[in-house]
């Protein structure tokens, strides 16, 4: 069936904002990859030495790094790890051991050489591999096959496979401040920060960027994605740089941040998922990882510092984006992870049960059945979280133009103050989170999941979450009439929130309530083996998997809608 019927005129393609690939900042970066890696290495070493000023501290840091790296190799090996990993680190370790027997004036140079070796290795590993030829190839392949699948599945006619009646744009709607994004990408450097729910996000966003006519962005993509070969190919060709979340040592983190910082300073549009990893609970991110986010602020400050005369410099714009799905492939595993560690302060083990075959199967399902995705592009912000206008001017709440430079001015001149910028990063992250909630696009399926789960929770007020989730699914049944009444009431509140500018919803949420409920129930977690919501023969609402329903319900947590259920 056709869901999410949108106006056809939204389907027009966008012209590329920059003519040829050679003009793209990301191309410039990759062309001079060697020099850039060298620059990142040198700057990172400077930074690390600033953070660990004495010889002793630096040696301690290096020893800790080696220890952690060897542990990682022992405990958690990935397919993407280089084959010489183990050899490299035992070499470093030996050299560190030898160091202790040397006399003090010999230590310095050896230590520096070791640090450089490590940082250079990291910088090289992080740096992306953007190649215009393979970029073009990937882009065409993706477009071609997506289109074939889509038409083959949807147009029920002979030879439909080669029709062009449907394009990806029918499947994936892009809403929000598209024009502004295109304009800002010309005026300055864009740092795009999407929400993260599924491994599919990376590819989806890559497609969105291309279809909006923007030059390729550099990505901070989790190294675990490169374990899956098909992803690795896509990512490499789209300008991804690698973020390895297993490595928490100082030299690595500083190198990673420096890479992002310098790339942004060089004008490369960037993208990273500030939530860090996929949202385990299904909640919209509330807490962001501040590390990479701080690089945007640092880069902006450096640009101002390097141009003290006040001449026009490239401004950095932060653009929040939310991805809205009816279905998240990994939902059952994610929510299980979440529930396992809830209350305990453990880390999430990165496991990817999905190989290339599962992925292809999912893609096929995705295209053959009607499950749409929408991507909401938020308004541009400056690095302090102020809204900007189409020209890139920062505006205050009254619409007056502010000079972003002034945020870095102390006593009349631009200064570097780490603590101040940490605070700015925290403020920016709060702004992004509230912007996520504002641009979030609610689907009928989200609302149905939310209302159903909350109703069940209300029916068992004495049970905590875990006891509720342990109830046998057969005992859970909601009268349709009652569900309908509640759904309607919450939907009305949602409209009010929308009018107050606090959230968005898909157009299909309007209209006859029975129809919307039907849509919602049919689509929530549509491809799961055990469906989170169904109607039984009596027309009442039942569930086959309350845990997964909880996951989809979480999408609407944070709007204080619970009180209306």
């Amino acid at each position, binding site marked *: 069936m056709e869901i999410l019927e949108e106006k056809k005129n939204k389907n027009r393609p966008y012209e590329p904002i920059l003519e040829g690939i050679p003009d793209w900042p990301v191309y410039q970066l990759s062309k001079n990859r060697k020099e850039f890696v060298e620059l990142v290495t040198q700057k990172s070493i400077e930074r690390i030495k600033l953070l660990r000023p004495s010889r002793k501290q630096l040696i301690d840091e290096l020893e800790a790094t080696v220890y952690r790296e060897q542990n990682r190799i022992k405990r958690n090996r990935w397919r993407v790890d280089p084959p010489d990993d183990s050899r490299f680190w035992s070499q470093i370790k030996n050299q560190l051991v030898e160091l202790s027997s040397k006399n003090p004036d010999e230590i310095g140079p050896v230590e520096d050489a070791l640090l450089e070796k490590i940082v250079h290795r990291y910088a090289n590993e992080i740096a992306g591999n953007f190649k215009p030829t393979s970029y073009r190839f990937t882009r065409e392949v993706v477009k071609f096959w997506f289109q074939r699948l889509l038409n083959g599945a949807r147009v029920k006619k002979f030879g439909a496979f080669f029709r062009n009646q449907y394009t990806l744009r029918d499947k994936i709607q892009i809403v929000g401040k598209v024009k502004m994004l295109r304009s800002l990408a010309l005026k300055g450097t864009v740092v795009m920060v999407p929400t993260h729910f599924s491994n599919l996000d990376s590819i989806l966003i890559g497609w969105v960027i291309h279809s909006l006519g923007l030059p390729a962005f550099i990505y901070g993509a989790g190294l675990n994605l490169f374990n899956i070969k098909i992803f690795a190919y896509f990512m490499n060709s789209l300008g991804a740089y690698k973020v390895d979340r297993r490595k928490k040592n100082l030299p690595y983190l500083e190198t990673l941040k420096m890479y992002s910082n310098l790339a942004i300073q060089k004008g490369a549009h960037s993208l990273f998922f500030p939530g860090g990893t996929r949202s385990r609970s299904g909640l919209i991110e509330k807490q962001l990882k501040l590390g990479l986010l701080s690089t945007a602020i640092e880069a902006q400050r450096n640009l101002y510092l390097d141009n003290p005369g006040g001449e026009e410099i490239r401004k950095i714009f932060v653009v929040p984006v939310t991805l809205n799905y009816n279905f998240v492939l990994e939902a059952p595993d994610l929510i299980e992870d979440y529930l396992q560690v809830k209350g305990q302060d453990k880390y999430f083990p990165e496991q990817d049960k999905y190989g290339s075959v599962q992925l292809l199967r999912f893609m096929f399902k995705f295209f053959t059945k009607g499950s749409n995705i929408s991507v909401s592009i938020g308004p541009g912000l400056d690095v*302090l979280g102020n809204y900007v206008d189409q020209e890139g001017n920062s505006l205050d709440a009254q619409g007056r133009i502010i000079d972003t430079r002034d945020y870095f001015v102390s006593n009349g001149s631009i200064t570097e103050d780490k603590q101040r910028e940490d605070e700015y990063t925290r403020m920016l992250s709060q702004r992004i989170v509230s912007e996520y909630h504002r641009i979030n696009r609610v689907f009928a399926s989200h609302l149905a999941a939310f209302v159903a789960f909350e109703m069940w929770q209300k029916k068992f007020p004495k049970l905590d979450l875990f006891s509720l989730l342990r109830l046998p699914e057969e005992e859970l049944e909601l009268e349709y009439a009652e569900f309908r009444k509640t759904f309607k009431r919450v939907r009305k509140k949602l409209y009010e929130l929308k009018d107050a500018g606090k959230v968005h919803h898909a157009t299909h949420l309007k209209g006859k309530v029975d129809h919307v409920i039907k849509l919602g129930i049919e689509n929530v977690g549509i491809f799961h083996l055990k469906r989170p919501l169904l109607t039984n023969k009596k027309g009442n609402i039942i569930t086959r998997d309350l845990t997964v329903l909880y996951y989809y319900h979480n999408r609407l947590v944070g709007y204080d809608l619970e009180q209306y259920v």
Partner: protein
Amino acid sequence: MTLSSTSDKPVGVIGAGNFGTVIANILAINRPVILYARDPLVARHINEKRENRGHSIHAQVEATHDLALLARECDVIFPMVPSAHFRTMMKQLSPHLHPYHILIHGTKGFDITLPPGETLDSVPKLSRQQVKTMSEVIQEESVVVRVGCLAGPNLARELAQRQPGATVVASHFNEVIQLGKRLLRNDRFQVYENNDIVGVEIAGVLKNIIAIASGALSGLGYGENAKGLLISRGAVEMVYLGRALGGDLKAFLGVAGIGDLVTTCNSPMSRNFTVGYRLAKGEKLDDILAEMTEVAEGVTTVKIAKKCADHYKIRALITDRLYRVLFEGMTVEEALEFLMRYPLNVDIDFL
């Protein structure tokens, strides 16, 4: 460091009340000061007579009636105006402010934003959406983000006499704290640091409630035991309310919390104490307020805190009884009787 201490750019002070004048004098020891007075006559009086509200004015202080000039000349500004006028003042100041400005305020009160048609008396409950601290008002009304606040046992009269005293400078920004220290500190004035600005602000506001209660006990003629009881239970109540409003426990145990609380509860000079004292003597609230020249922030604070406690379901007995005394005609004796009979037996349960 980022700020040269040799800079001789003037520092601004907004509000030529008691506290504003005293702070201007303290700042003037280290830097030239521009003092803003809302009333042009007051500004002229200060400049001509070198005197204000009984305080002689330091030679480095210059009074003005021009906010634009103050914002242009000063990168660092200390707003010292009553909470009821704070937002209006910020709205006037805001067009002249830039992100390089640093604001350190010394106002102990809440700001209330209500839906049109509602008044503080008509709303049954208040949430944090409606109740803002002054640092939040600054950020809402202007582009200034580097905000700090002053709090602590700072009785204007004693400071003016250069008796030993202390203050807390609280801010999320070390830069602001260090700057505040450098500007304010002298051999008679100690400055402490705290980075929980909201906690410090809330502590400074809530202690005014207990100050009224303390005045009331005094007015009834009770002695030190009763006061000890009030201060310790009052501190606990402040912690509960403060936490619900987003402050951290530590702020309440420091100079801005306990320090300020003990001072105000023992100070017959304080306006809030006076209100309580005269209430217990049987005077009517309206008469007392009509006679006061400066605002007793505590009276409004009781109203706000009571409605917040109701919203967040916090048990705040002293605040609640005081509310009834102030606005619902309960006598001080009745309130005291209720409190003494209340079956409360846990001493400290927030640590």
